[in-house]
């Protein structure tokens, strides 16, 4: 083969080089900012304008800061609870949309995409108006005043996050439901499984990657959200993005870099765990299929 080179080989080699360059640049653009962020979290300067020296004091001060820890805790609570609820509701919605035909299904289908499409700020203001009306109404009806009155807080943030996350989960799960071979479910039922058993032992495991993917997406979106959180939160409900965004006004201190580095680590661990779990489960299901 090497003796009679095809006329296209030269071109092919150049193409390959270009592709390599493309990949290298993509990685640089994607990861250089992250590397700098991590590096500057060890910078011994309050302003972080230039490299002064190595220190781990920002990690210490971050861990000592009540405000940062509370914000992190709030963010994780919101992300975890809203992801759990949204994943369950979103999966149910996806099943309903994919498996059943009902009145106004098309309308509902369209509405389901709304939170994905409309700008965050529109949804945020709508939710603020909604909560203020709702809570005001309930307080008025029950005669709640002062400290007893219901008011926005972490709970309203969680509800708001569930509201937009349902759509994301439903869309992802619907895709994997659509790819599912209906024959498998029929086969299970032919072999005597009732509907619940079929769902639990055939459908659910098969769409599990979709559900997990949707849940991870929801978790990330929730952890990341600033606009909707800000407008729906109340006393004691400052989340990490709200805290970080507020701090930038003063000086982007390396403490923020330290928080971001920790968040980066947490999300990397999450991704790795989900990959391992998925790989193992596909391995297990293929080996159990052999049995």
């Amino acid at each position: 083969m090497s003796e009679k080179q095809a006329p296209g080989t030269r071109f092919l080699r150049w193409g390959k080089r270009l592709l390599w360059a493309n990949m290298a640049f993509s990685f640089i653009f994607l990861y250089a900012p992250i590397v700098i962020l991590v590096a500057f979290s060890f910078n011994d300067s309050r302003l972080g304008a230039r490299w002064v020296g190595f220190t781990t004091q920002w990690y210490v001060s971050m861990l000592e800061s009540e405000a940062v820890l509370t914000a992190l805790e709030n963010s994780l609570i919101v992300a975890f609870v809203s992801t759990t609820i949204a994943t369950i509701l979103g999966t149910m919605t996806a099943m309903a949309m994919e498996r059943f035909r009902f009145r106004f299904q098309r309308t509902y289908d369209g509405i389901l995409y709304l939170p994905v499409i409309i700008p965050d700020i529109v949804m945020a203001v709508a939710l603020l108006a909604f909560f203020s009306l709702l809570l005001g109404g309930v307080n008025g009806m029950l005669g709640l005043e002062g400290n007893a009155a219901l008011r926005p807080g972490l709970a309203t943030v969680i509800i708001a996050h569930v509201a937009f996350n349902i759509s994301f989960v439903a869309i992802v799960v619907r895709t994997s439901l659509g790819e599912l071979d209906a024959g498998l479910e029929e086969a299970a039922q032919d072999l005597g499984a009732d509907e619940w058993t079929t769902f639990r032992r055939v459908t659910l495991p098969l769409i599990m990657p979709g559900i997990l993917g949707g849940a991870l997406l929801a978790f990330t979106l929730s952890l990341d959200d600033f606009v909707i959180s800000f407008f729906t939160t109340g006393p004691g409900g400052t989340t990490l993005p709200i805290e970080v965004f507020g701090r930038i006004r003063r000086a982007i201190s390396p403490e923020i870099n330290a928080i971001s580095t920790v968040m980066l680590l947490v999300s990397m661990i999450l991704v790795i765990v989900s990959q391992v779990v998925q790989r193992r489960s596909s391995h297990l299901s293929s080996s159990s299929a052999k049995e």
Partner: protein
Amino acid sequence: MKIFNRMTLRLFALSLILLFVLAGCGSTSSAPAASSSESAPAEAAPAEAAPATADLPEFCGDASKLAPELHFFNWADYMDEDIMSQFEAECGVKVTQDIFSSNEDLIAKLQAGNAGYDLVIPSDYAVQILINAELLHKLDMANIPNVANVDPDLMGMYYDADNVYTVPYQWGTTGLAYNVTAYPDGVDSWAAIFDPAQVCEQKGFASMLDDERESIGATLKYLGYSYNDTDPAHQAEARDVLLAQKDCLAGYNSDNYNQTLAGEEVMIAHAWSGGTALARSENENVKFVIPKEGGAIWMDNMAIPVDAPNIYTAEIFINYLLSPEIGAQLSNYTYYFTPNLAAQPLLDPEYHELLESGGMNVDDDIRARLDWIKRDDTSIIFSDTWTAVKAR
């Protein structure tokens, strides 16, 4: 059954990781807190359990009227957390702080009603808006005797002429920050940044605040008008000056001008005093001046929303913040000016020296040259002028 178990396991693993992270943060946070007491001021009260309500210090007021918790809505990084824990240790009131990042955010929250905050920190013009919307509570000064500590020159400002609704929190100025290596003789006029011949000597090393009121206001000052001039002819003049200057600027920057100043990426900058002080603490070459034509003054204020659940406790906390020791502790932390005359002698000498030698301190002479930025229906022209400047 097997599959179901696997799913629960996965969820369980996920939650375990999260719990681990949370617990890890929680436990490490409590350990170093004790060892770092050196950074906390010496007068910090022993953070034992909340004292018995019977023998609270006098400044805690009537213990029976105190709420167990106070909700504080503040700018980020604008309160020493030690102060909140000291107040909790002394008076048994837990202060929780939440963050907003602009006056407009704060106004939106309060306008929606039932926000649940007991103490908020609006800036001057925002106070005016909140008072007009009847969103602020009239302070009971009998509960705030420490208001006597406040500089009389900073009381009775245009937005709350009789201090019915607000008392000062922190304040600052807007002027010019410069690097002495580029300006060995110092700077005394806005011409240094507005005269094209002068600013272009520092081409690419000059920056203006990205703020329509501040940047156009400073230009108006340079031209000999007021910060709040809305005369279209004067605004057009200001626009032309800004356009002529634009080519020699590194950019418009109000977020991290303090970083670029400290890193010497910028040699002259239209800047706020607090951020410049922060830059100077990193780089001694950075100095500040209120140009001879004049600059701007702003003030953030303590106010209580009209629907706040714990009004009495909020007033007691305001009084606490206005005490001399706490006032000094606060400004040592924020790097802004304290309105508290009684606190001034107690300021950290190093910090005081930093402001004095850096040209940030304000004497009567400088004070007379400072304008407040006011907003009314005619202020919209600033947006039009700013758009014309930024668009080109």
